């Protein structure tokens, strides 16, 4: 279907400085069992087109679900008129942006396609997972789900570019809540951060029945635990909390559109300024952060971004020093500095902006036991449950589902409601230990919000366990 529409678009290309068509079809199915009862199965088929025009220095776009010849022509004309009518008011000369015209294909490697399992088999698996979770009368709520998505796009440009990409995504989830009459605690698989580009082979790696029982047992364990004590000391973060830490206090502040001010009315600005790149010490020598859309099966892997820039691995922080921003081709043009291939839109109905994609902390050399063994007194935390950070991405407070005290180099009792707070600009400089590849996990979330109009998008974060010194930690009320 896409090829016919693209051919038509190419034939009717308007006489403008630059024009692109991004066709997107996203099909999804979500199956959830809550307390053993199947929730309504959600089936979705979302298809539409985004036309972008750069003309006379302006930029305009039009999104439409009408893929007929007349529908596409009308959208193209709307985009052209927007570019013309706002050209004299534009923040930059968009006609001068060197837009690429790429050719290529990308497809998620999948060995067991979603379609290979009948719906009944998925329901049966979730029924078994759900059945494993009612381990105690104090388990008051529990759910198990599978969320599959296939996102196909075809990007065509006025200069002969054509990129076809298909991403297949699977998000398995189990979660349990336990209550003792006054307190409720929750425990979930990876803080609901276990999301990959994958087919059903992912379920060979993650046994939802085993995981279901484990999260329920840990929910009871947490219910019976003491609150995390108030203290300042060493904090050891598991990869499923590092994901959030990277996302909020490295990813967002390094987005170039935030630094250029585009997001100040909504998602916020950044404590990072353009002059910091190349010299600013973001973290300790142990901190190496990469933008890497090439990791097999990570959630936001792709071959080209939504402006057609080929994706490649780039260091954004190396040896603790800030190297480059997360900025797309348009932001790079505006800022006059190199960036990465991160222009992305949530779907056909939104324009692309600077996003994180896969942003990872590179593994270090310490085993998990080495990290724990180096701590005299501290807390180990897993799985994000609460996140809050200021609009400059500096003062943060995060909470986790599960914690354990570390005493004299050994993991101690479980503690509940573990929270910590800090300031991005100093927190990463207190990174004193980075786990090796044995502690490294590839995770992601489908829910990163940003942009005006608002967009929620998939991002991937892979990380080893990491150890921080002098962190302020505390528990519940």
């Amino acid at each position, binding site marked *: 279907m896409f090829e016919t529409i693209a051919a038509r678009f190419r034939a009717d290309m308007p006489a403008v400085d630059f024009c692109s068509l991004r066709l997107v079809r996203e099909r999804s199915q979500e199956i959830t069992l809550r307390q053993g009862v199947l929730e309504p199965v959600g089936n979705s088929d979302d298809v539409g087109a985004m036309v972008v025009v750069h003309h006379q220095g302006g930029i305009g776009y039009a999104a439409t679900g009408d893929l007929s010849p007349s529908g596409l022509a009308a959208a193209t004309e709307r985009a052209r008129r927007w570019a013309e009518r706002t050209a004299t*008011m534009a923040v930059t000369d968009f006609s001068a942006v060197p837009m690429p015209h790429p050719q290529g294909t990308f497809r998620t490697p999948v060995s067991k396609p979603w379609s290979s399992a009948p719906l009944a088999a998925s329901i049966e698996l979730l029924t078994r997972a759900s059945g494993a979770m009612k381990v105690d009368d104090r388990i008051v709520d529990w759910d198990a789900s599978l969320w599959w998505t296939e996102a196909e796009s075809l990007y065509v440009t006025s200069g002969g570019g054509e990129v076809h990409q298909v991403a297949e995504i699977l998000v398995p989830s189990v979660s349990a809540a336990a209550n003792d009459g006054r307190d409720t605690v929750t425990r979930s698989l990876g803080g609901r951060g276990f999301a990959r580009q994958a087919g059903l082979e992912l379920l060979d790696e993650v046994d939802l029945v085993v995981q279901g029982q484990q999260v329920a047992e840990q929910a009871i364990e947490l219910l019976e635990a003491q609150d995390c004590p108030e203290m300042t000391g060493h904090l050891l973060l598991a990869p499923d909390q590092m994901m959030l830490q990277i996302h909020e206090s490295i990813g967002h502040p390094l987005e170039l559109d935030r630094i250029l*001010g*585009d997001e100040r009315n909504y998602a916020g600005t950044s404590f990072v300024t353009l002059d910091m790149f190349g010299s600013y010490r973001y973290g300790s020598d142990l901190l190496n952060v990469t933008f890497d859309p090439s990791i097999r099966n990570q959630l936001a892997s792709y071959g080209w971004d939504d402006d057609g820039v080929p994706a490649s691995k780039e260091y954004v922080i190396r040896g603790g020093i800030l190297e480059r921003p997360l900025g797309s081709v348009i932001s790079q043009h505006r800022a006059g500095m190199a960036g990465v291939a991160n222009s992305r839109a949530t779907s056909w109905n939104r*324009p692309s902006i600077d996003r994180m994609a896969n942003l990872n902390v590179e593994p270090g050399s310490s085993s998990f036991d080495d990290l724990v063994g180096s701590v005299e007194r501290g807390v180990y935390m897993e799985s994000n449950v609460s996140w809050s*950070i200021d609009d400059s991405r500096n003062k943060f407070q995060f909470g986790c589902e599960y914690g354990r005290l570390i005493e004299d180099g050994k993991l101690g009792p479980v503690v509940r409601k573990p929270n910590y707070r800090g300031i991005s600009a100093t927190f990463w400089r207190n990174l004193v230990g980075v786990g090796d590849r044995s502690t490294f996990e590839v995770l992601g979330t489908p829910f990163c919000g940003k942009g005006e109009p608002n967009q929620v998008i998939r991002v991937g974060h892979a990380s080893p366990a990491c150890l921080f010194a002098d962190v302020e930690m505390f528990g*519940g*009320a």
Partner: protein
Amino acid sequence: MQSAFYALSDALVADLTGDEVLLTSFSGESSDFVRLNHGKVRQAGSVEQRVFTLQLVVGQRHASASLVLSGDAEADRARGREALAEVRQQIPLLPEDPHLLYATDVVSDESIGADTLPDSASAIAEVVDAADGLDLVGIWAAGAVHRGFANSLGQRNWFTTHSFHLDWSVYHRADKATKQGYAGTAWDGDELRRRMAQARVELDVLKRPAKRVEPGEYRVYLAPAAVEEIAGLLCWGGFGMKNQKSKRSPLQRLVDGQETVDPRVTLSEHPGAGLGPQCGAGGFARPARVGLVTEGRHAGSLVSPRSAQEFGVPTNGANGSETPESLEMEGGALSRDDVLSELGTGVWVNNLWYLNYSDLPACRMTGMTRFATLWVEDGEIVAPLDVMRFDDSFYRMFGDGLVALTRERELLLSASTYSQRSTVSALLPGALIDGFRFTL
């Protein structure tokens, strides 16, 4: 869009067999979005989308599908029939759903607002002109928003509104800015220029040297937009029957009678305000008002059709996530004109930001001040305050800590455009609070 939706729904109803029941809904928009930065245009465009959802019910079994329509009647009918055929094939594979509930009493309604919107590009030219010399950043969102429902029992519901929302802020430097908004159905350039002039006045205060305060307890005034952030967090699972029955509500202790807040706190959902569609989930008509907290005590819950069936109570047509769409808080006795003098020495908080729970069962929340947060001494605004983190319990802030609520309330229309433009609103007072806990 209305006639096309009904025609598609009718066509699919004509394809039903046996005891099949069909519920269909529609959510669409024709919107212009213009993004501004530094008083200039960053991105300008239009989005036209029509999302159609069908739910096929056979006895206690059901399945649903959603698809994006093209606007071409013949093509959409074909896609609708294809989707109907797919869910028809799914239904025998699914177990009976004990929580299925949909409206069987036919209650139809129609609300179509007049289109008095300006040409978006012309309005933006006025905005850019009025913001001359200002570092303005924000979004213009304007156009038609549509919601529809129809079922095979003969019910028809339609809602159309034509509105604009200019959501913007003006920056002095770094994070020192004043947040503004101008929303409505009829554009008035003079009103825009009045608000822009007000922003210039507020900007003068922000140009003063910023004050830093140490973590600790402070007397604060939370303007309605700041109260909205707290209310918005409570809406995230606080008022729904499902969360309350499964002990996951952040207001659980209020619901269970273990906690109360000040008797001056009264919250309700007010669909009767008429700012959104009257037809609720499953085709159920929504009541004019649902009491949630009355005089400091739990009073009621938002009940979706599924929760109604699960817990054996009547539904009030709440959406699937059981979140308020038109939350109201009763006003108090404090005149807006007296806020500064009653605040005395403390912090005027115009906006809060990025709230989340630090201890959900205790309804203890954390978040940041944002935009114009001002230090006040002896009833006089002295200086802008650098951003501060707070960490405090709702039960304390709106319990023992509550000094007063303002008599005047502000209608805050949501600027949210996730997926589509929102029709959510809130009507809230400001709150004067003692001992507000800043932590970082």
